[in-house]
């Protein structure tokens, strides 16, 4: 892994992306540890105050500080991004590996069928249905994303496992009679780590974007604030000439997504050059 890191370090855009993400991640960590953005719900000024030394980004309709809300929202973004990415990547990797290893078996057919069904449901309808079914549970949005996002990872891993199963080192492991579980986890999946990592950054971006859209639609964050909720608030304000919420939320979202895309691109390059299993 050192060589990937070294290659990444020599890529200026990749490092720029990495630092942007690091700044947001630091903000999120500080919010979680209670050092930053705690007064996002406190009314600390008048309605729609403009930029000042006390309110750097101004205030919203209720007189809440927009900077505080923006900072708190980056914690929301990371919470959604991390939980959805970790769970859907685990699910996709395991199901994809099983489908690929037991290719054409009933298990493969079943996994592909479930994937096909999930892929054919319009996502926002599905998210609304889950939110309705769970009576506004705060994890409904996360669940909707995990259930639908694993399919792409599974498809990629399935193909990769089918390819790797033909490799001689896997046949050598089969020839001594190692059980499939051991072969999959010890010999096959470690060789898909580069694909899993790149795919995970893509899922992370998708999760953050989707959170914003769902929150905007009122299907997302319940007890908190997110860039999506800020954008939803701003839809009325912009017409009235108040750009604070709109500018802060969209610039923060844009910067974080650019950071992830830069990192994902250069990560892919760094991994490709590495002599992995060709």
């Amino acid at each position: 892994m050192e060589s990937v890191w070294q290659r990444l370090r020599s890529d200026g855009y990749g490092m720029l992306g990495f630092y942007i993400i690091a700044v947001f991640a630091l903000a999120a960590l500080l919010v979680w540890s209670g050092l930053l953005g705690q007064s996002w719900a406190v009314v600390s000024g008048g309605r729609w105050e403009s930029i000042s030394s006390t309110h750097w980004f101004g205030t919203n309709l209720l007189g809440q500080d927009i900077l505080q809300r923006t900072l708190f929202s980056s914690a929301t973004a990371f919470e959604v991004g991390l939980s959805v990415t970790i769970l859907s990547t685990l699910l996709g990797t395991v199901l994809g590996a099983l489908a690929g290893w037991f290719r054409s078996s009933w298990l493969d057919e079943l996994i592909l069928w479930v994937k096909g069904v999930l892929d054919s449901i319009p996502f926002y309808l599905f998210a609304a249905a889950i939110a309705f079914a769970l009576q506004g549970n705060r994890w409904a949005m996360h669940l909707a994303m995990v259930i639908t996002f694993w399919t792409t990872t599974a498809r990629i891993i399935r193909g990769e496992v089918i390819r790797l199963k033909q490799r001689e080192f896997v046949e050598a492991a089969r020839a001594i009679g190692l059980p499939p579980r051991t072969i999959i986890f010890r010999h096959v999946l470690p060789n898909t780590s580069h694909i899993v990592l790149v795919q995970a950054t893509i899922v992370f971006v998708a999760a953050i974007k989707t959170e914003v859209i769902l929150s905007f639609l009122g299907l997302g964050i319940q007890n908190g604030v997110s860039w999506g909720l800020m954008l939803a608030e701003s839809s009325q304000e912009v017409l009235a000439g108040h750009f604070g919420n709109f500018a802060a939320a969209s610039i923060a979202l844009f910067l974080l997504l650019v950071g992830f895309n830069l990192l994902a691109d250069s990560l892919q390059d760094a991994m490709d050059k590495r002599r992995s299993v060709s």
Partner: protein
Amino acid sequence: MTSQRTHPAHPLLELRNLSISFRDRRQIAVDRVSFSVLKGQTLGLVGASGAGKSSVARAILRLVQADGGEILFKGEDIHRMKSQQLMAARQRIQIVFQEPSRSLSPKRTVAESLLEPLQHFAIGSPTERSRKVKKILLTVGLDHDVLHHYPHQFSTGQKQRIAIARALVTKPDLVIADEAVSSLDVSVQAQILQLIQTLQAEYGIAFLFISHDLAVIRQIADGVAVMYRGQLLEQAPADTFFSQPAHPYSRLLLSLASLDEPSPVLNHQQQLNPDGITNHRPSACVYSAGCAEVMPVCGQSEPARIEIKYKNQNMRGSHCVRCHLYDETNINET
């Protein structure tokens, strides 16, 4: 030596009418192949790409399922073994593949790769295992400071030495070498062949040496078996095979090998039969379409397996051939 099941009457490995097919029996890869490998001997299995050699190797390791026939290892059918018996057999049969860069897990160190079979078969204590690994590395000509290196840090020849070490670490009775030297350049090839011969002399390991290169086979094999389109056309002791090949296909291979260019023609055969599919009518000889000595009977009936008798029967092993030239009625020449 180690197993009580070793019976002097049995060859170490015996294939009886092994058949393998793919895609729901529509593609016959191996068609009623029979041969045997004796303890401590090397059988060279020759044939063009797609002749079914690798399928035979994979069936012996139970990586593919056989459709018919038997694979007897020390007298027991590998495909009918119970799990405990199979585990014991798997410890005694190992394989070395063609591409060393693809036969070692890229993300695992040499130590991890070599320890894995020992751990799996629960051989020895952890200290004994690491001693065995160091010893086998020395045997194949590598220093034990390579233990924590990854495959990509080695040359192709070194990787093949590691693959051989992994095959030998469980002290097998039979090693299947599937084109094990074909991807190596000539000088490395010579070193690896030398290594295999030394190891064989030292440990008494039998080799099933699969190759398309007759020069390699001539150097290393005690016996030769020739495959064509899934069928075994001839099996003979090496000296007999190289001095008096019986089958027209064997003669063609030898005449081309003596030009020192075996590959172009083998590729040509491959073009004639690109998928390695045996689509011939069962009522004809598989080689009848390409044979220079084809007779009317070759297109009408499939030749049986015939053992050629010699006046001075003092050679090791029998000489069998599947060709109408050797039918009782057709023996006009001696």
